[in-house]
């Protein structure tokens, strides 16, 4: 690592452009600009060659909108949702309430309120209550979904799918049950409306993905503990994507029933859910581009399979070779989809379009040169100043599991501008201490105070927002996010008032300060080990913390890297004035760097003092270093 200069003069870097959007915003903007006409061209191509009729083309477009909804949630959170078709169904039913001719509604939905009975709205107006209903149900179900992760979230969403199906059948006054709602005006849906809806859905989905909450959801997907350590409230970002995607699904559903003309519960159940999953998996669930590609493929594949099924149906009951009788073929589409999904998962797990948005593909970027990768706008140096009165203090901190005492009576103090070391042999209770002080475990007794406030019960989020930055023993970066976005997530938490472009510049400044500018657009998982360590520090510093807690930062580093990091930490403390708590196994480094050292062993704090005092302390020598030295053998 070369010499680091946190106070680099800003005039060195000249502005090359005035961007209105940050990198991801620009990528999203161009993705919309590319996808909308490209999709239209594909549909026109099919129409021009007579391969598709009007309603199939409309269904394809609606499937794209639905695919965007599912893709937005599944891609952003990494949680497979099986419930999104419920929002699609809700949108479908609610829109139909307002567009079915009043004369028919009289006997179809006799117990509806008079106002709805009389409503004879144009479709574009009926979209409003449809989307609103989907959002409302999204908020209600989101209360549960925001709490759940992984398998539990998938199964809960499956539960919601079943519940909605049962209610679509059961709530006859609203849905007419299995008799379904019919006479839904099919001429109400013209191409102008459907194209406007498509563009709106594209913009909303990409804007959500590029938003702070969208990026926070991705950070949570990559590593929730790290996300919490920089103050991200993971639950809220998941809720956000859940509700936005529900709105898009509601829109798609409302349009859908006005193509097919009938709203039946079975249309919003397993088959359609599976079709949606197939779309996002085949296209590539990590990117919205993938969802669009998948939706187009699935729509036309579905049509081909249906035609094949009809063709085979003509042979049903006839004898084939060897006395085998051709069975009646049902559900060929589902069978073919199953095979397709298995093939994609075996051979191309990222999907056909991969995990990149269309505008981030290299060949697109080359054509849009000047909009991408232009790192150097007018960047102010990365800097902040910690108040000299900042204090981190623990009093009698104690943690036990049943009868086992993992840590007892830890009294530790870090002042602004100080580097404090915490050392101890393996199993001494260092990890327990870190987990308690960073808000991942509750202390059994004792207290933590941060700048004279009682922080004993604060969550990891709150601690992060209130001035405690940390790194992890086993590196935790947001692997698939770019290096720049890793830091940007922290900047957004520390400085919520900054606009997206300014925030990005600030993140770049932090990368520059830690000598990572060359890899700003690389994904974090592709970095070398030492670079990932520095990225963690950059991300923690971008939080502008009063105290930086480093958990074995030089583990696995060679001598030169350790020296460089030591120099960097000294510089950080000198320039910023923050306090550093260093938990480390590398004794020479701790001795060289720290102003004050605490020693723990077997859960107890056995000594504290300056490096010289610690070196001379007989208790420490006996417990920690001495055994081997004194051993006569």
């Amino acid at each position, binding site marked *: 690592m070369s010499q680091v200069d946190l106070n680099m003069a800003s005039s060195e870097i000249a502005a090359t452009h005035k961007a209105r959007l940050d990198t991801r915003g620009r990528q999203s903007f161009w993705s919309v600009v590319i996808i909308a006409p490209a999709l239209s061209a594909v549909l026109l191509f099919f129409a021009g060659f007579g391969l598709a009729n009007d309603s199939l083309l409309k269904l394809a477009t609606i499937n794209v909108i639905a695919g965007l909804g599912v893709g937005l949630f599944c891609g952003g959170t990494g949680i*497979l949702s099986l419930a999104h078709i419920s929002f699609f169904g809700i949108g479908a039913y609610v829109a139909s309430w307002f567009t079915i001719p009043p004369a028919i509604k009289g006997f179809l939905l006799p117990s509806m309120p008079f106002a709805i009975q009389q409503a004879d709205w144009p479709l574009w107006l009926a979209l409003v209550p449809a989307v609103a209903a989907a959002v409302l149900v999204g908020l209600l179900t989101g209360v549960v979904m925001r709490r759940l992760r992984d*398998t539990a979230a998938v199964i809960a969403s499956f539960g919601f799918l079943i519940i909605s199906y049962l209610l679509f059948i059961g709530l006859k006054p609203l849905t007419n049950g299995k008799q379904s709602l019919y006479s839904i005006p099919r001429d109400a849906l013209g191409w102008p409306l459907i194209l406007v809806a498509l563009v709106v859905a594209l913009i909303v989905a990409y804007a959500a993905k590029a938003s702070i909450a969208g990026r926070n959801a991705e950070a949570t997907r990559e590593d929730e503990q790290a996300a919490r350590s920089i103050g991200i409230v993971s639950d809220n970002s998941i809720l956000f994507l859940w509700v936005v995607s529900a709105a898009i699904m509601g829109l798609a559903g409302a349009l859908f029933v006005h193509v097919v003309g009938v709203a039946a519960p079975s249309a919003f159940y397993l088959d359609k859910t599976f079709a949606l999953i197939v779309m996002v998996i085949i296209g590539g669930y990590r990117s919205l581009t993938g969802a669009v590609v998948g939706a187009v493929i699935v729509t036309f594949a579905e049509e081909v399979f249906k035609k094949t099924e009809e063709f085979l149906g003509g042979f049903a009951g006839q004898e084939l070779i060897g006395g085998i009788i051709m069975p009646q073929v049902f559900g060929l589409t589902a069978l073919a989809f199953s095979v397709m999904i298995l093939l994609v998962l075996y051979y191309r797990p990222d999907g056909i379009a991969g995990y990149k948005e269309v505008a981030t593909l290299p060949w697109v970027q080359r054509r849009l040169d000047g909009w991408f990768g232009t790192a150097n706008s007018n960047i102010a140096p990365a800097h902040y100043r910690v108040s000299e009165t900042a204090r981190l203090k623990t009093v009698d901190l104690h943690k036990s599991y049943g009868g086992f005492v993992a840590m007892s009576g830890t009294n530790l103090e870090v002042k602004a501008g100080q580097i404090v070391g915490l050392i101890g042999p393996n199993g001494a209770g260092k990890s327990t201490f870190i987990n308690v002080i960073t808000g991942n475990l509750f202390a059994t007794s004792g207290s933590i105070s941060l700048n004279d406030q009682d922080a004993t019960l604060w969550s990891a989020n709150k601690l992060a927002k209130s001035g405690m930055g940390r790194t992890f023993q086993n590196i935790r970066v947001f692997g698939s996010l770019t290096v720049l976005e890793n830091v940007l997530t922290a900047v957004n938490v520390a400085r919520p008032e900054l606009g997206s472009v300014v925030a990005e510049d600030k993140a770049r400044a932090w990368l520059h300060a830690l000598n990572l500018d060359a890899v700003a657009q690389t994904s974090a998982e592709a970095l070398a080990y030492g670079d990932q360590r520095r990225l963690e520090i950059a991300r923690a510093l971008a939080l502008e913390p009063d105290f930086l807690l480093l958990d074995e930062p030089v583990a696995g580093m060679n001598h030169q890297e350790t020296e460089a990091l030591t120099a960097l930490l000294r510089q950080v403390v000198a320039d910023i004035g923050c306090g550093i708590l260093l938990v480390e196994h590398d004794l020479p480094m701790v001795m060289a760097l720290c102003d004050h050292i605490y020693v723990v062993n077997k859960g107890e704090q056995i000594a504290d003092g300056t490096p010289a005092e610690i070196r001379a302390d007989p208790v420490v020598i006996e417990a920690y270093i001495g055994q081997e030295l004194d051993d006569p053998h």
Partner: protein
Amino acid sequence: MDQVIQFAVSVLSLGGTYALLALGLAIVFSLLGFLNFAHGDLMTICGYGLYFLLLTGVPFLVAVPIAIALAGLAAVLMERIAFRPLRGRSPMSLLITSFAVSLALHVCFQIFISPKSKPVPIPNFLSGYFTFGDIYVSKAQIIAIVISVAALLLLNALLTRTRMGIALRASATDFDVARIMGINANKVIMIAFALSGILAGIAAVIWIAQRGAVYPAMGLTPMIKALIAVIIGGLSSPKGALYGGFLLGLLESTFLFVLPDEFVLYRDAAVLIALISFLMLRPNGIVARNAEPMR
């Protein structure tokens, strides 16, 4: 009094069935980290096995063990064909694969057997009622309780007393370490699937004995509930699946007794809503892996 006993019998028989299903799901989850959505189709396979065996004149008591073994075999084949090529991928891809397998099987039943429900003749000793004084209890329910309790005890003995069971538990705790200690991964996974299939088969026999029919989507509803029971119980231990199964039985019986007949359609919806609301309070289930609350 008779109401109380009938209620208790209903709770135990339903709970036992769900616990069997949930345990099968949990055993596979403990090794591979995914819930097998095709688990319900193993029930259906067992059901069709029973149907065809009885059709060819095999006596009921002989047909039952063969049908159950068939479900175990189907589970092993499912792993070999669909899941093994994906070994080591994310649990999410395995879950999606199992979803696809389930749908494919469902379609195959429709095409090659029948989309309509097929009757399974239940022998007389399984239908009708036991009478204790003036209390009537369904025979099928009592037998369901006996069989599921016996199966659970047998499974417990298998897991704690035999080499195979200990290997399975070791692998469930830490698969990597177990492999280093010389446990054959393929074999352990095969055994786990065979066990889960057999448990699903037993559940299927209990299920069919009370309903007397088999159809392509037969396994779907009980499986969905078992899936949720596993989550409710907590994914980290088989005990969780047991608790979840019986809690589900309790809930369902309660709604069955409390809800008037005209709302019977909403029973499943009410049960599911209750279960999901429970998840909100305890996202990691009853037996949570991390006993520490998140701060």
